């Protein structure tokens, strides 16, 4: 039974309950970095790490946190993990760290992490909370990586910094600018929701 539950939690976060397109949460801090694939990967890895471990920690501590101050305690737990991420990035990939700027710190206020801690970790044991955090993080990561892939491809004609489009390609500079991120995410949500809706209609 435990195994089935783990599987369900995992798949829900990737699909139906995906934090980005089903709940539209936590897009704030990471839309900004999706114009380059490499930065997005680093950023989302940070988010996965923080989501998983903060969920785990909150779950371990759920019986000792007084409910009045629980938001504050959760925020502090999340902030500690974000500091770890920041220091690690600064040490190992200083270039990317500089480009990400304040957005690494803004993982703290990413609503997904807080949302998972509130909705899941507070009422579930530690093991499954770790899985849930991991799955939400990955569900979030892959959507952003898809968006980053298209934004970099269309905006600069490159993937992972390598030129893939020939000389015939004209860069859509709008894609690497802020409006491009909004349009891209909207189109992505549109496609996914459209597919889900037709799928449900067929079933019923």
């Amino acid at each position, binding site marked *: 039974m435990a195994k089935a539950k783990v599987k369900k939690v995992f798949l829900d976060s990737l699909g139906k309950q995906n934090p980005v397109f089903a709940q*539209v*949460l*936590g*897009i*704030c*801090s990471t*839309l*900004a970095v999706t114009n380059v694939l490499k930065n997005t990967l680093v950023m989302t890895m940070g988010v996965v790490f923080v989501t998983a471990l903060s969920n785990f920690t909150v779950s371990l501590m759920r019986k000792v946190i007084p409910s009045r101050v629980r*938001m*504050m305690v959760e*925020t*502090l737990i999340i*902030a*500690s993990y*974000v*500091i770890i991420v*920041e*220091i690690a990035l600064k040490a190992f990939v200083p270039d990317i760290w500089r480009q990400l*700027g*304040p957005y690494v*710190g*803004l993982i*703290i*206020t*990413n*609503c997904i992490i*807080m949302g998972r801690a509130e909705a899941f970790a507070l009422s579930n044991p530690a093991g499954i909370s770790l899985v849930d955090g991991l799955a939400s993080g990955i569900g979030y990561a892959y959507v952003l990586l898809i968006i980053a892939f298209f934004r970099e491809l269309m905006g600069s004609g490159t993937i992972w910094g390598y030129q893939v489009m020939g000389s015939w390609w004209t860069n859509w500079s*709008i894609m690497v*600018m*802020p*409006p*491009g*991120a*909004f*349009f891209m*995410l*909207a189109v992505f*949500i*549109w*496609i996914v*929701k*459209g597919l*889900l*809706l037709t799928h449900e209609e067929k079933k019923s």
Partner: protein
Amino acid sequence: MNSAVYPLAVFFAAVFTNNILLANYLGMCSFLSVSRELKTSVGLGAAVTFVMATTSLLNWLVYHYILLPLDLDYLRFIVFIVVIAAFVQLVEMIIERVSETLYAALGIFLPLITVNCAILGVCLFMVIRDYDLLSSFTFGLGSGIGWFLAILAMAGIRQKLARARVPRGLEGAGITLIITGMMALAFMGFTGMIKL
């Protein structure tokens, strides 16, 4: 740039060219969920502007007089978020005592603000761009007003949109994001007005 004009330039840049929401994507969560009605948008916008302006001031003081001398730069995330949360709590208690009507209008939005990424974002930008005290304040105020402007415009558009027919699958978040994109496009017209 002339040092007397600089804080003013920062203010206008924060409202128009570097709008915290439309150019830096911050504060999207509450922007998407609260912009349905004009009245609540005004309440939240006012609360955000107020908290942003004061916390950027407070955090500047904390950062330059406590964190830097003690060489605790890496603790700034935790310290900033605690300052913001404590300040919001304080304001909530004061408003509750002082004015019933103000509390009814703003009170419910205050807890939301602690986790609003725009507030923390302003404080982090202020550190990275190395603003002085006055510029930090005008930056916070300007960003708040810029956010206010964006959510107000969005609420107005969404009220009209309630009667429009939106393609299937695009209702809700999708169409709001597209409108936000168009607004960002419009605000890009301000680029070049002020260079920072």
